[in-house]
């Protein structure tokens, strides 16, 4: 079924309200992206989201949109706190999947001679791939519950990282409202061995170099300079989050019929925000979000340890610090201005990043003059971007922007394209070292699987919902 779209300008398209839709769809894309999108099902999903009760403003899609489950990946939807709904499918299975960027004082010249050793050490020190975990980290159920309540703060209190790290994490690393009592035994069991693990698929750990600065002032404020070595961590809430989503989808399927909510797709199942089911999901989601914050905090500690060991320098010499940590699968209660009114909204970001503007109270003090840092990973063979949030995003997209490159090839198609090629050698020729636990992952994650992330961030910048600060290039990539 084709979806009717109207071009608004060079980077905006409207899906006009029709049928069961309660509002328009708004898609950020250039002409080439839209030509591809019209052959896919993601636009139908934008339209489906627009049918949900209590939606405020349009059903939004970012330029990295692709076909997801229920909600599209790259989707943003805000719901009224009183009249609206919350949907686990609007967050996704990997609750608080997100990205953390670390800065070092090192230059590429200082790290290059050690890069092979560093890649080996990181690959050894940070568990990745299926079933792998640190044997020296054993959690009791009581301790795991503390992780769910405290998030990254639990990690810092237990010696993983420094108190100042917390200042530079979305929600300071602890999402409020978490209630471990609503977490199933099964979710706790799946999580117990997976805290401090990277996972597999598109999750990664990267040593990068700052290749180009786009906004000197913002780069100065963020502490980025050309030739600098940085580290990117992309992972989420692992099995615990997947199970929380699964448990609540089941609950929401029943809730949706109980509250008479018509669903164009089962995966969009939801419940009113002020219903017991809605509140329970938010309390459980916060637990999973906190697990993910703690996860990235533990990995940060092991990254620091790995750099210290390989380069033979102390933590004081290296000064590896957190630039920022963003969620890209989350639903959050936020205050926004909409049509001249102050509204309390539940903003769902599924494959989308919060991008709050300069001056916002939730933007860390250090960054308040330039806006909240936004971290946009590309693919393992090209580059990633650092952006900052803008007033434009705050006004038009509930303070949200894109989250990555977005897949274009199915895994099967990627594997076919990779057949007979030595991906490791190809990356090495571009100065990128790779360590991966799975050959399948390596083939399925080739650059060609993804859109060029530059196209994505260009649309975002042109639309004024994000501002490019710097481009990063991978030196070493750890994959699950």
């Amino acid at each position: 079924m084709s979806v009717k779209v109207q071009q608004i300008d060079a980077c905006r398209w409207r899906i006009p309200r029709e049928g069961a839709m309660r509002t328009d769809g708004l898609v950020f894309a250039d002409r080439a992206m839209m030509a591809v999108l019209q052959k896919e099902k993601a636009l139908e999903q934008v339209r489906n989201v627009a049918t949900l009760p209590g939606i405020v403003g349009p059903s939004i899609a970012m330029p990295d949109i692709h076909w997801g489950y229920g909600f599209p990946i790259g989707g943003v939807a805000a719901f009224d706190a009183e009249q609206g709904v919350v949907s686990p499918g609007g967050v996704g299975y990997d609750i608080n999947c997100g990205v953390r960027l670390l800065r070092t004082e090192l230059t590429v010249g200082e790290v290059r001679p050690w890069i092979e050793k560093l890649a080996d050490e990181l690959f050894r020190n940070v568990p990745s791939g299926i079933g792998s975990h640190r044997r020296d980290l054993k959690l009791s159920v009581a301790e795991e519950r503390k992780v769910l309540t405290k998030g990254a703060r639990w990690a810092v209190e237990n010696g993983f990282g420094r108190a100042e790290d917390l200042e530079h994490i979305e929600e300071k690393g602890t999402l409020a409202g978490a209630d471990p009592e609503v977490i199933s035994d099964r979710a706790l069991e799946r999580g117990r061995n997976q805290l401090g693990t990277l996972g597999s698929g598109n999750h990664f750990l990267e040593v990068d170099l700052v290749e180009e600065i786009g906004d000197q002032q913002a780069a100065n404020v963020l502490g980025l300079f050309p030739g600098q070595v940085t580290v990117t961590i992309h992972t989420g809430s692992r099995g615990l989050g997947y199970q929380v989503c699964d448990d609540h989808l089941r609950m929401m399927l029943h809730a949706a019929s109980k509250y008479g909510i018509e669903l164009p797709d089962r995966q969009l199942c939801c419940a009113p925000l002020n219903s017991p089911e809605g509140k329970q999901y938010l309390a459980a989601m916060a637990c999973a979000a906190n697990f993910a914050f703690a996860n990235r905090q533990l990995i940060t500690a092991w990254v620091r340890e790995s750099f210290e060991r390989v380069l033979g320098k102390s933590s004081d010499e290296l000064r590896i610090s957190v630039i920022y940590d963003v969620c890209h699968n989350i639903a959050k209660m936020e205050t926004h201005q909409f049509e001249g009114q102050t509204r309390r909204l539940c903003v769902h970001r599924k494959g989308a990043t919060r991008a709050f503007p300069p001056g916002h109270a939730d933007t860390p003090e250090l960054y308040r003059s330039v806006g909240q840092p936004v971290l946009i990973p590309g693919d393992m063979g090209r580059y990633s971007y650092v952006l900052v949030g803008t007033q434009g995003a705050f006004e038009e997209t509930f303070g949200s922007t894109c989250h990555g490159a977005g897949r274009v090839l199915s895994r099967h198609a990627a594997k076919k394209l990779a057949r007979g090629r030595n991906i490791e050698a190809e990356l090495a020729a571009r100065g990128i070292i790779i360590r991966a636990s799975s050959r399948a992952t390596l083939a399925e994650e080739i650059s060609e699987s993804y859109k060029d992330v530059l196209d994505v961030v260009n649309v975002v910048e042109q639309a004024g919902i994000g501002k490019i600060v710097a481009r990063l290039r991978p030196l070493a990539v750890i994959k699950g």
Partner: protein
Amino acid sequence: MNSFRLLEHTADMGIAAEGETLAALFQQAALGLRQIITACTDIQPSQEILVEVQGQDREELLVNWLSELLFLLESRQFLPAAFEIDSVTDYQLRARVRGETLDADRHYLEREIKAVTYHQIKVEETASGWRAQVFVDL
């Protein structure tokens, strides 16, 4: 005919299964799930686990059945070799799953499945038996 094939999805993968009976259909779907996780053929059926799952309808039952297998793999490191469906109705399934504990030296896992989804899920009766479609999140 009892069979399965894997389906394309931009970010993820799906399973299309066919079975002459509902039991055969659920067995084929499980084989499809294992195929996504591993191409490994050396899995000894040395342990047996009894699985019992419920659902509000056949679709939910299928999601719950496959989710149970993922749980056994992830939390108990149990890699399945064979699936015997003892009984299946629209709401309940009983099966014996044979397999062994994951051994990193012998077993190579290709992909981690995050979850079994309800996205475009179908369980349908056909002229020759049953057909199902289910997508997983990778």
